[in-house]
């Protein structure tokens, strides 16, 4: 595209971001500050993820972009088109065909491979954000691995509600050292972070932080011995494809409160239906 560098960002910026990414990969889970650039969309719309993607994207890459698991929402479509125009790369909705996946708030159901990179859009990179107001203090806590207060939050939940009440952005310990915010993915997705063959990169544009989980890294969701972490999901099967092991979206379909549950991962659902799986209502096509 004329007037713009490959993938929009200039080469110096990409180099700066790649340096930050290397640091992040070298220290799994540790937040690395970076010079977040002005992007053609406001903060809160994925500028961090886009900058990371732009820095690692190559001409031969195949890009997939999802938003809450779907390839066809407005944001996913816009970002995919953005890179198609500024980098001219091939794009896809098929998880297995992608080499680079940018995601907002979900991990694809299909297990990722060693030759893939997944880039997460992160609104708030600091897992201690709500517990400790001082940034200087949270930096000290990370430096000294002083994470007692996070367990206090879990304790409080159990004391008040009988169980941990964190349903997304559930804090994890990466490589046994750093407390990390995995971005607002549902707790259901947390087990996928552990020993993932793909490289996981995290970009927060507004907060100007980058972090990473290298392939095959230990990632443990925080819990107590007598209240172990449970990956919750709605106890239903997908209405469209019948899957009982995927994360579900709840969709209201009429004015009487009728609802159906469908796979949040649109590609996963489509694959299953293409393979002949049919859900409870036997719908031949997805009801949007």
């Amino acid at each position, binding site marked *: 595209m004329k007037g713009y560098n490959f993938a929009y960002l200039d080469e110096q910026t990409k180099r700066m971001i790649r340096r930050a990414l290397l640091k992040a990969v070298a220290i799994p889970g540790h937040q690395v500050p970076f010079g977040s650039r002005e992007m053609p969309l406001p903060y809160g719309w994925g500028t961090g993820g886009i900058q990371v993607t732009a820095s690692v994207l190559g001409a031969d890459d195949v890009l997939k972009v999802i938003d809450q698991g779907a390839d066809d929402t407005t944001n996913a479509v816009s970002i995919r088109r953005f890179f198609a125009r500024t980098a001219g790369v091939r794009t896809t909705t098929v998880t297995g065909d992608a080499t680079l996946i940018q995601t907002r708030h979900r991990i694809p159901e299909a297990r990722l491979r060693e030759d893939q990179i997944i880039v997460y859009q992160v609104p708030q990179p600091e897992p201690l954000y709500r517990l400790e107001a001082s940034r200087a203090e949270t930096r000290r806590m990370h*430096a*000294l*691995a*002083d*994470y*007692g*207060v996070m*367990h*206090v939050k879990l*304790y*409080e939940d*159990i*004391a*008040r509600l009988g169980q941990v009440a964190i349903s997304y952005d559930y804090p994890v310990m990466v490589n046994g050292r750093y407390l990390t915010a995995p971005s607002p993915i549902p707790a259901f997705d947390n087990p996928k972070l552990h020993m993932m063959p793909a490289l996981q990169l995290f970009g927060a544009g507004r907060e100007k932080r980058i972090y990473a989980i290298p392939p095959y890294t230990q990632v443990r969701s925080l819990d*107590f*011995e*007598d*209240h172990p972490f449970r990956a919750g999901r709605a106890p239903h099967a997908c209405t469209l494809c019948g899957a009982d092991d995927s994360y579900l979206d709840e969709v209201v379909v009429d004015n009487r409160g009728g609802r159906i549950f469908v796979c949040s991962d649109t590609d996963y659902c489509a694959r299953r239906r293409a393979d002949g799986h049919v859900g409870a209502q036997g719908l031949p096509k997805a009801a949007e």
Partner: protein
Amino acid sequence: MTTDSTLLSARGLSLFFSEIPALVDVDIDLWPGEMLAVVGESGSGKTTLLNVLSGRMMPDAGTVWYRDPSDRLHDVQAMPAPDLRRLHRSEWGFVHQDPRANLRMGVTAGGNVGERLMASGARHYGQIRAAALGWLQQVEIDADRIDDLPRTFSGGMLQRLQIARTLVTNPRLVFMDEPTGGLDVSVQARLLDLIRSLVSRFRIAAVLVTHDIAVARLLAHRIAVMQRGRVVETGLTDQVLDDPQHPYTQLLVSSVLQA
């Protein structure tokens, strides 16, 4: 330097805030299981001394040594920050005059008491809760307040909660800064009695800063009297208070109102 198995020793501590002498050539010794009261009026340097001894402030001169359970001496100023922090979380405790400075007001009583355990690696909810319940009992807070927020506690209860939170890791050394300051007299009495019995039962060594001589007499084995940054007299509590040698000590003792 012979410390003769002291738990904490300081030599030659000096600290100036610009021209103002906060500490001048102060020596301190503390043995295991003993309580040392540091008394003096405002500006005597007693709180500064507490902060320097606990590593929260750096002196301009002098050294503080701490002997750990395996009998190794550590220079408190030279300790790496993570080690000092770990020390504060486990073997040491600090009771502030204002309990709110040391409590999380938005966290339940149980969470406050259990935090130091969780920070030291405790990962069993049931055991943490049981320990918290036990300590609430020790400080005479009703067990059914365990899930209440400290916002709902009175001043005396907050101070007792702070003490429970501090003692839950069974520290060997506790620094106390005017722990009964600002409390009503009857509440003070209860708190002093509690401190007295906990310190003796758990063999805790403590440095207690107070301006109230009666508190020092009740709780401390030894007393150090400070005036303008210097320790002017130190010795057995009842001896220093009943037979004061230094002019300032005599002034201090004679100024106390008898109830």
